């Protein structure tokens, strides 16, 4: 991400996702900055902080201060505090057999960002993915509130299957993903076929390959996207099956337009993910 203002927005959206995934409402945030004063213009930092502040304002969050240090490379993140009723905290591993799994943003940001780095992405797709990463998971979180959601997490660096694995391992359950229903960013499959795949995707796959079984019929590019590390990805929601369609409707209505039912939670095979 070359534009400092968008970089700030994306970092802020990303930082907020944890609170949204827990069913919380974020209230305050603190900036955390590492900045290479000697090699970078301070105006860049100003734009980053503006981006972060604007995104927090959009989320109804007050930025109460922060910490900055001189660093060899640029780092920006935020520490976010939110509120949630103790009985309503959504956890990662409290899913139930039979639940439907809903993903609220399309995947493939790692692959697209690799293509952008390589100068091979079109301006249209660059803009699309920038806005996607900067989009808050707020509307998704608000849509969840009215439904029997059992578990939720936000999809980031471990990729879709990495985060799904965190949910099922330890819960004593398994999951089944329907690869044909996955929301995937346009061109991500094409760039994956060209080998524009971030190193992290291979690491994610290696780490989880023992618990993941992918049917041979699944497209090679789709296999890559499943492990592609996401920046500020969507929420992965495990909802009671008979409410899945109603939740999906609310997600679409509130603006999480790419949300899709991507699979279900199963009791067998235990701690395994099957992709069909």
């Amino acid at each position, binding site marked *: 991400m070359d534009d400092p203002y968008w970089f700030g927005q994306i970092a802020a959206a990303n930082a907020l996702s944890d609170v949204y995934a827990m069913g919380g409402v974020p209230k305050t945030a603190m900036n955390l900055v590492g900045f290479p004063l000697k090699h970078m213009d301070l105006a860049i930092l100003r734009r980053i902080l503006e981006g972060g502040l604007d995104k927090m304002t959009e989320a109804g969050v007050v930025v109460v201060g922060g910490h900055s240090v001189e660093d060899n490379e640029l780092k920006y993140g935020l520490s976010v505090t939110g509120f949630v009723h103790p009985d309503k905290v959504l956890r990662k591993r409290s899913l139930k057999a039979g639940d439907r799994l809903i993903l609220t943003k399309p995947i493939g940001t790692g692959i697209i960002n*690799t*293509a952008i*780095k*390589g*100068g*091979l992405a079109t301006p249209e797709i660059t803009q699309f993915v920038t806005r996607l990463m900067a989009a808050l998971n707020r509307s998704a979180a608000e849509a969840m509130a009215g439904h029997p959601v059992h578990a939720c997490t936000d999809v980031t660096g471990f990729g879709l299957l990495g985060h799904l694995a965190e949910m099922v391992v330890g819960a004593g359950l398994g999951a089944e993903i329907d690869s044909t229903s996955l929301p995937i960013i346009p061109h991500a499959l094409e760039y*994956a*076929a*060209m*080998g*524009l*795949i*971030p*190193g992290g*995707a*291979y*690491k994610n796959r290696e780490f989880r390959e023992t618990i993941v079984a992918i049917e041979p019929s699944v497209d090679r590019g789709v296999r890559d996207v499943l492990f592609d590390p996401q920046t500020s990805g969507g929420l992965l929601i495990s909802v009671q099956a008979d409410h899945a369609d109603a939740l999906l409707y609310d997600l679409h209505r509130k603006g999480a337009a790419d949300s899709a039912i991507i699979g279900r939670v199963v009791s067998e095979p235990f701690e395994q993910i099957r992709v069909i």
Partner: protein
Amino acid sequence: MQKIDARGLACPAPVLQTKAAIDEGADLLAVLVDNKASKENVCRFLETQGFETIVESWETDFHVHATRAGVVPRSAAESLSPESDGSKIMVMITTDRMGFGDDALGMKLMTNFIKTLKEMGASLWRLVFVNNGVKLAAEGAAVLEDLKTYEADGLKILVCGTCLDHFNLLDQKRVGETTNMLDIVTAMQLADKVINI
């Protein structure tokens, strides 16, 4: 043959360097990378561009050899021998003794076989050792010197890493490159003839 050393570079730099070489019209490429992700990415890119690839593992590095489909590669071995018709023969040796019956005889025959292989001339393109065959490439094997001569003359000798590991011979290998099943399968696909012993 265009060589690209993309070691120490993160994705997508190795792919971009490969792309630049192809854009300049390269038909034969050797790309050197130092991690699996780059190896996979470079192979995929080359395949989408209509290249055939072979990967050799070399300690922590990977050599990706690529040929544009339809271009006949002229390797060192092939160009050395005038009688070569350009065909590529892969000999896969799955045992340290030839045939069944008498083991002592089988081992003698195998030694003789390997010594005689040179009569294939430059058509002999790959010599692959798997299962019990890897013992022929390990310390103490009767044919080690012959194999070393072949290798010095440009023959590519591949030795199955899983098999070496199985027999606890990983540090006893004295000739050839440690290989994996993907490389073996790719070599089979590229060879004109595969002879299985």
